[in-house]
């Protein structure tokens, strides 16, 4: 089902052909991060801290260095001191997270690394590195970290965003606040006020491919890096910064990437691999084990969130008060800022106060994860909305419709919304048969909505017309979920040639212009816009060449259906392959670049309804039916729009029901495996039904909005609301495991 405001009659955009990189991926040919082998290549292994918080007293590498076959051993002292160099605080954090200097701040923090001729030798050598620690008291949660007299991770951390600035350091990196109106007045106008407190645990992005990097350093100071990342330009910049070298000395080639969801926008192994390769004089491959991925990369924040909201009897939200604290992990930078901006942004609420804290603790530094910050915030607010709807006896969709942000609504984070499709997603759910399907015993239905900004940022593209009239479309955006297909579809639409005649390529850092990370649901919008621009430059050039051929003015030439046509039909059309074949005579090869800082970012909304069945005797929740409606603006590649929607929902189901970081009291992660970090498996799920809503983004040539992230925002609240509907109990602590559900049911029956 697609709701389309207009049907522009596209030939390629909106179709479902086979993806260009698909064949390599179903035959095992695609080269992912760990698949490259170079002649003479060594295997590296990283030495990690077993402690959550400790001072490094000494590192003895002599035993490891003396082992036969060990070619390099490095520690933090092999990297420049960015503090002394006066680097930006963020660059210092990136550097110290890549390899610890005087202190380790979480279990898994890198302290040293080795390279040896075999995998087994590297592992043995890593074990032989002797590190002596002075263990320090640690803090694992926002509660512990914000407590009076809590042990400090960073002795100089003064909370930002507080006026006047505190005179004592703390683990609170910053405070954010958004407010409007008069809370007292707002709550005074409410007939019903609901106040709840929510907690969520850190969860991992859970990409199936562990981080991997191969580095090959030359003696002249240059180095090549192959790695799996969401942005090889970002990897180049951060690696150069950690190594203290110029970016120009590094060339980064993007391997196929085996999932990222935000977690591969940051460096981990790359600078280590380069330094090992420099020391050893040979290529070095570093690949993380799964337990390293869990202990030292990702996750997103654990949180505590308090929400108080008021509603009038006719369903108008009158006021909202939100307090939230987000774990940042070892270094400042949790997504609490985005959480504060999104938490109530989907609704028009006259009086509100949103306050948030970014809190460091002794866990891995959080990394972006699909709409970072928004899902936890939505879990809290959308759960409270459900309570409000129940209190006043209103349908939960109707409550949201009565307060939904529309074009012109002053968003809680500041500006007015442009044309958005929130209402349309709500209506799509309400009209779908799932919404009124009969529920069985022990089943319940929950609704929730979500909002995410999406991003624009910088992208580059090059379009080459080959001699036979086919085109190569070169971009710098690693393809994480089918973006090569959407690039090819837009290029085919622009150039008027078949999709199959387009070869989309992700090029290395020396072959295409700078491009920001594949993140923020921005690639189809921003890199797509660069591709469209480059195609349009090519078309201008083609028109000029046809004009030259026909000896007419260029305004006499139109580009239609892949060929140049004279406006009055006085010349036989010139096809792209004809023009390409003779390009040498008309000015040389046909090629164009476009680079841009994208504009016209369109906000994304998703509304979801889920049906669950709860076993009242074991507390097990099974999802029996799921429907998601999302405003895609325009679905360039509907297959992969649905894929993003379904993938986001299922990650949210995992977050809602089972996924969590479990730490023991020493700060060691107890479940760093896919066995005990329970991501959804196929048998846990029903089909995820999709309803692509298309409210075109007026600021984009094809109406594109980002589609990648918002799908993960509603599921946790949808599940919680469905559990409430099925059982009468409200779960406020994620994940909503069978243990917690049964406890709540026991309390209810007491």
């Amino acid at each position, binding site marked *: 089902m697609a709701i389309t405001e207009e049907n522009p009659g596209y030939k390629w955009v909106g179709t479902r052909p086979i993806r260009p990189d698909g064949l390599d991926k179903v035959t095992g040919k695609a080269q992912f991060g760990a698949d490259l082998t170079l002649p003479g290549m060594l295997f590296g292994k990283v030495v990690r801290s077993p402690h959550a918080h400790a001072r490094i007293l000494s590192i003895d590498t002599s035993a490891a260095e003396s082992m036969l076959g060990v070619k390099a051993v490095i520690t933090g002292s092999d990297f420049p001191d960015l503090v002394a160099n006066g680097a930006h605080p963020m660059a210092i954090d990136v550097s110290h997270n890549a390899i610890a200097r005087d202190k380790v701040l979480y279990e898994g923090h890198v302290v040293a690394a080795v390279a040896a001729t075999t995998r087994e030798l590297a592992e043995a050598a890593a074990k032989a590195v002797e590190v002596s620690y002075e263990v320090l008291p640690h803090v694992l949660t926002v509660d512990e970290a914000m407590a009076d007299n809590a042990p400090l991770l960073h002795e100089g951390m003064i909370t930002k965003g507080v006026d006047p600035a505190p005179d004592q350091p703390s683990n609170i990196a910053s405070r954010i606040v958004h407010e409007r109106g008069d809370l007292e007045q707002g709550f005074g106008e409410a007939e019903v006020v609901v106040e709840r407190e929510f907690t969520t645990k850190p969860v991992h992005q859970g990409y199936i491919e562990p981080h991997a990097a191969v580095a090959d350093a030359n003696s002249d100071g240059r180095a090549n890096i192959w790695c799996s990342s969401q942005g090889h330009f970002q990897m180049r910049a951060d690696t150069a910064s950690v190594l203290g070298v110029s970016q120009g000395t590094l060339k980064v080639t993007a391997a196929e990437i085996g999932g990222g969801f935000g977690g591969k926008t940051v460096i981990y192994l790359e600078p280590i691999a380069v330094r090992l390769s420099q020391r050893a004089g040979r290529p070095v491959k570093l690949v993380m084990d799964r337990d390293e991925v869990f202990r030292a990369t990702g996750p997103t924040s654990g949180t505590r969130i308090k929400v108080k909201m008021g509603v009038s009897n006719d369903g108008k939200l009158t006021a909202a008060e939100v307090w939230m604290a987000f774990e940042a992990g070892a270094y400042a930078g949790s997504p609490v800022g985005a959480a504060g901006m999104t938490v109530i942004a989907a609704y028009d609420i006259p009086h509100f106060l949103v306050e948030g804290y970014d809190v460091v603790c002794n866990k891995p530094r959080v990394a972006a994860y699909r709409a970072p910050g928004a899902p936890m915030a939505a879990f809290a607010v959308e759960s409270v909305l459900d309570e409000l709807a129940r209190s006043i006896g209103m349908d939960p969709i109707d409550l949201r419709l009565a307060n939904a942000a529309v074009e012109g609504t002053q968003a809680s984070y500041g500006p007015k919304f442009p044309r958005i499709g929130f209402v349309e997603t709500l209506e799509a759910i309400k009209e779908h048969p799932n919404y009124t399907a009969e529920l069985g015993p022990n089943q319940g239905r929950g609704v929730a909505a979500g909002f995410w900004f999406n991003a624009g940022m910088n992208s580059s593209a090059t379009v080459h017309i080959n001699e036979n009239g086919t085109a190569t479309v070169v971009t710098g955006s690693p393809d994480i979920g089918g973006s090569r297909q959407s690039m090819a579809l837009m290029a085919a639409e622009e150039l008027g040639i078949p999709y199959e005649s387009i070869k989309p390529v992700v090029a290395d850092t020396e072959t295409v212009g700078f491009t920001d990370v594949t993140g923020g649901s921005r690639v189809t919008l921003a890199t797509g816009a660069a591709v469209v621009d480059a195609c349009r430059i090519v078309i201008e050039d083609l028109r000029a060449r046809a004009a030259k051929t026909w000896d007419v003015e260029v305004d006499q030439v139109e580009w239609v259906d892949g060929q140049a046509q004279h406006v009055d039909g006085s010349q036989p059309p010139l096809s792209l392959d004809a023009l390409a074949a003779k390009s040498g005579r008309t000015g040389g090869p046909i090629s164009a670049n476009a680079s841009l800082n994208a504009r016209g970012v369109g906000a994304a909304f998703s509304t979801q309804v889920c049906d669950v069945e709860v076993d009242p*005797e074991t507390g097990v929740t099974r999802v029996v039916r799921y429907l998601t409606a999302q405003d895609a603006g325009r679905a360039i590649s509907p297959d992969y729009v649905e894929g993003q929607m379904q993938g986001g929902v299922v990650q949210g189901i995992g977050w809602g029901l089972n996924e969590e970081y479990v730490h023991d009291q020493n700060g060691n992660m107890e479940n760093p495996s896919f*066995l005990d970090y*329970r991501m959804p498996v196929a048998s846990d799920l029903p089909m995820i039904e999709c309803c692509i809503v298309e409210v075109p983004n007026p600021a984009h040539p094809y109406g594109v909005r980002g589609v990648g992230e918002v799908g993960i925002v509603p599921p946790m609240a949808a599940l919680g609301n469905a559990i409430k509907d099925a059982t009468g109990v409200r779960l406020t602590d994620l994940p909503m495991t069978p243990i917690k559900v049964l406890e709540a049911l026991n309390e209810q029956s007491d």
Partner: protein
Amino acid sequence: MKYAAPSSVEEATSLLSSSPSAQVFAGATDIVPQIHGGRQAPEVLVDLKKIDELVSLTSDDKKWTVGAATPTVELTENQAFSQEFPGISEAAGLIGSDQIQSRSSLGGNLCNGSPAADSVPAMMVNGTRALIAGPKGNRLVDVSEVVTGPGQTCLDSDEFVVEFEIDRAPSLTGDAYLRMIPRTEMDIAVVGAGARVTLAEDGTIAAAALALGAVAPTVVRVTAAEEALIGTTADEDTLAVVAAAASAVCNPIDDKRGTIAYREQVAGVLAKRAVLIAMERAQQRNGDV
């Protein structure tokens, strides 16, 4: 680490006797993660799958014999076995994914010593015996006596299980195994319950066995429940006694997979449900074994 694949029980026994740091394995599904995680570092890896007796599944009038290293998929795929012991078959079918079941075995599942091993409650309620080979000869030990604590067995380091013997199920007998996991697959049991009942001609229970996994240091029998079931039709009141008895025998721990309170409560629930399924199966299996 050196790999060895003896082709006879004797060869395996002498290998084990001659190298103190040898470790037998069948499907390797547990030992590989253990070695990887540094929890084991044997010098010799003794692969038992090349010994014929260890990979076999046969039956005669008296009993079924299951080679200790037989992949569990061969149990679930064997229709006659699965019809006679659906509880063991379904337990075997819960040990990990299809990929794991191509390799996992009853011998490995038992000797790994996990209190959460799925096949063990199901084997126990069916009175399964383990034939253990060692340098001093063979001995036959009831499965309930093999595991002595988490990760610990009554086997000496030079002994291993060759095969399991399970007496043919009498008519009017049914078994069942249920487990509670947060997902639907790929988890370690938080609670497991195996039950078997044999009915008298009048439809009342003549014999009953109930065993629980993951609720104590080893798999435990719930004798109070078994006794309570005798002579009843597993009516609601009796099942309440069964559930209470099941909860009462639990001696679990709080860990990352479950809490004490949860395990105790759900042990009762699963015990009840497993008995009911076993009853139903017993009613359907009237002398046609």
